[in-house]
């Protein structure tokens, strides 16, 4: 079999289907960033599988010229688990949204992270139900007025990152929906990472929740409101590159370099690989600055690796190679 990987361009990954998201939707940015990232990953097109649930985001697989399944609401992570276990050689991507993964599919979401199946999950978070036309979601804010909360939402939201840390996610990145460059880069990193990679995209819904992340993502404010972390680098942000994070007791604190005697070397260095996720959880929780980039990337054995090792061990020690060995073994008798 031919093992060389062809040189692909982003066009090789675009299907013949017309993209049907609303004009101006961040989903287009994610799609295009993915089509650009895939040729850089060194994997064969036929080895790529996109599996989605239900929702606007979940139409994604139809637009990718790879293997794909648009499944049922909330179940993509469980389906992807089966696909990956069946063939660990595949590059398996789950496309999901805040309703799909954090409401109806919450159980599969936490368990896939717990098991650490080597798949990639892109969570399109727009803090609203789009496809069903504007109901609040598990990430909608308190007070948010939606079709099902005309007087304001009274259900406190999940923070996807914090939930993921609670489920022991080994890889978590958060990205702005209007930052294709960072997306492409992060998708490549997610594919390299051995284990479940979760990427939350703060995705604007132009119709039902327009401007939901503008306070962090608008070009005029983003440098001041977002902290784009990078492993091994100090956590510095701001137009002037003079703001940073320090640890004050058990809390993260924003400080200004040059004020009150704060020096650049006082700023925390980001360690995405740290096994203990306490600081990663605190970073995921922050609202100012909104932390973006790869917050956590701490590898350990994947579920498939553990299964594979165990299977090899059992095979090596077993007297059974064919089912007949089993059927005729033990307590049989002649009539």
């Amino acid at each position, binding site marked *: *079999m031919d093992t060389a990987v062809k040189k692909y361009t982003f066009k090789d990954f675009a*299907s013949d*289907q017309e993209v049907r998201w609303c004009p101006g939707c961040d989903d287009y940015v994610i799609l295009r960033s993915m089509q650009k990232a895939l040729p850089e990953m060194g994997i*064969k*097109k*036929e*080895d*790529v*599988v996109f*599996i989605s649930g*239900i929702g606007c985001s979940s139409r994604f*697989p*139809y637009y*990718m*010229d*790879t*293997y*794909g*399944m*648009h*499944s*049922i609401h909330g*179940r993509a992570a*469980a*389906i*992807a*688990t*089966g*696909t*990956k*276990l*069946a*063939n660990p*050689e*595949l590059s398996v991507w789950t496309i999901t949204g805040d309703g799909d993964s954090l409401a109806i599919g919450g*159980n*599969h979401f936490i*368990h896939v992270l717990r098991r650490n199946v080597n798949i990639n999950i892109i969570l399109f978070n727009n803090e609203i139900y789009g496809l069903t036309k504007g109901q609040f979601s598990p990430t909608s804010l308190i007070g948010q007025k939606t079709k099902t909360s005309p007087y304001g939402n009274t259900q406190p939201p999940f923070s996807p990152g914090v939930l993921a840390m609670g489920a022991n996610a080994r890889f978590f990145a958060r990205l702005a929906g209007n930052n294709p460059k960072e997306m492409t880069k992060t998708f490549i990193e997610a594919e390299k990472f051995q284990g479940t990679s979760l990427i939350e995209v703060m995705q604007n819904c132009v119709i039902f929740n327009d401007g939901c992340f503008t306070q962090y993502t608008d070009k005029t404010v983003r440098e001041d409101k977002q902290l784009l972390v990078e492993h091994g680098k100090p956590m510095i942000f701001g137009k002037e590159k003079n703001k940073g994070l320090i640890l004050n007791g058990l809390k993260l604190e924003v400080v200004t370099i040059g004020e009150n005697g704060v020096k650049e070397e006082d700023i925390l260095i980001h360690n995405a690989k740290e096994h203990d996720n306490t600081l990663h959880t605190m970073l995921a929780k922050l609202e100012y600055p909104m932390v973006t980039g790869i917050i956590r990337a701490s590898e350990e054995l994947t579920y498939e690796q553990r*299964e594979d090792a*165990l*299977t090899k061990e*059992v*095979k090596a020690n*077993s007297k*059974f*190679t*064919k*089912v*007949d060995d*089993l*059927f*005729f073994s*033990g*307590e*049989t*008798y*002649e*009539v």
Partner: protein
Amino acid sequence: MAIKNKEEALDHVVIRFVGDSGDGMQLTGMQFTDTSAMFGNDVATFPNYPAEIRAPQGSLYGVSGFQVHIGSVEICTPGEDLDLLVCMNPAALKTNIEALKPGHTIIVDTDSFTKKNLEKALYASNPLEDGSLNNYRVIEVAMTSLTKEALSGMGLDNKSITRSKNMFALGMVYWMYHRDMEHTLDFFKKKFAKKPIIAEANSKVLKTGFYFAETLELIPNSYVIAPSKMPKGQYRIINGNTATAWGFLAAAEKSGLELFLGSYPITPASDILHELVKHKHFGVKAFQAEDEIAGVTSAIGASFAGDLAITTTSGPGLALKGEAVGLAMILELPLVIVDVQRGGPSTGLPTKTEQSDLLQAMYGRNGESPLIVIAASTPANCFDWAYEAAKLTLEHMTPVLLLTDGYIANGSEPWKIKSINDMPSISNKKIAAGSNSEAWNVYDRDTETLARAWAIPGTEGFEHRVGGLEKDKTTGNVSYVPKNHEYMTKIRAEKVQRVQNSIPDLKADFNEEGDLLVVGWGGTFGSLHSATKKLAEDEGLKIGHAHFNYINPMPKNTAAVFAKFKKIIVCELNNGQLVMLLRSNFPEFIFSQYNKIQGLPFGANELTQKFKTLL
């Protein structure tokens, strides 16, 4: 009152071991079963235990029982009227005495007939003293004290000592039925290899019980049951759940595919998962999922990637899986769903049997969503039906729902072992690597079966998308075209219907024409077969028995079989589900029905009585 021991030859006997759920009755029963099978008897078993793992000691609802039917003749059911009842406490006596034939034998542990235990069993007076058991032969044995005595000085704790009293009872029964102790003694050695003192204690108690019975002149009879005339070959005792698991192992090996099981624990189906997790040496991927839905959806993911994928559950779990099964159906991927039925609705009777999921299996999904539905009918043939389910799903590219039930899943019988070489071949629709994809469309169909091809990820040039939205009849792209939806709905139904072309005819046993046709499906085979046999062979009545294993679609000749009989009675352990399908499919016939919804199998006597009213 010494009665001389005598030997009596019997062609079959039914024995029930009953006690507290912690008394080890299941193990005692299985040992007696294995020993009898190895001796050459035909056997059938029926474990009957409470849902509570350790219900309060001595309580009526904590009684656990194991019934075994052994014979020198063909044994199709675990029997109903008992020849011997072994009771470890008053609650066990109270809940089981009705099943014992008058004049027959009870062995009781008198040590357990304390005031407290009698009260717990709601006895106003001690049945051993008040004459209420005068119609039976009661053998009173102080089993607990005799066990303690036998084990004194071994340095065992009290709990370990009392726990081995079941072996005293087994020893007695071994002597009564001329069974050899060797198999059980061997079993102890293996099971307690790391605790030789426990092995020794159990062996000692078993022998003590055996010799006690031998010397006890109170036991009036011992019984001889000759080996039965079963076809020659190598056998083993197997229960339905193990046989189901092994059927899938065989199908995976024969088809050259890897087996993937996605499952979530549920009574009485968990034993299939317990069995398949053991077989990593065959490359089995048995995945215990976070819930029922992940069980089936992980299997769908594995099927998409090219594994032989199955999911196992019981009624409540099937309800949860419904939407995903519909997905597998519209994707037209191979998938086997096993429903080991239990008493419903809702949580119902988890440890009891019922056939009340048939309509759920047929229709329990949104939209027009037909599946192939088949049912196993005996513990051992669960092997064949699991194998057949895998073969059908792979060859027809549509999900298969296999129904078994708690009765055959937990019941066991001799299985004439099948070698993989004796099993029919299984083909699949996978597209070979290197195939040319130019003329291929996702929903191109085989002209005979209407099955589509199975293009699995990793196959170059066949990249495609599938999904739960209605798809274009050729490309598989999303389609809302009205006529296309109607076409696709009909062709998916037609694909299931065409399975008729590859399944055998329905047969009527005993008589191919006559006055009454007994119709059943699934796990009631043994009861219906025995009852019909009795009337047809012993009494010469014109009665036949037709049993469905293929339910959707039904065999082509079904109407022709029905037409040969004056009357038809449909017998089911539900409120009338198959009969509803039959009335809809075959409105030209009149169907009587006999239904039982007690969480218990049919008894042969109730059936013969009912049938006689129609003859």
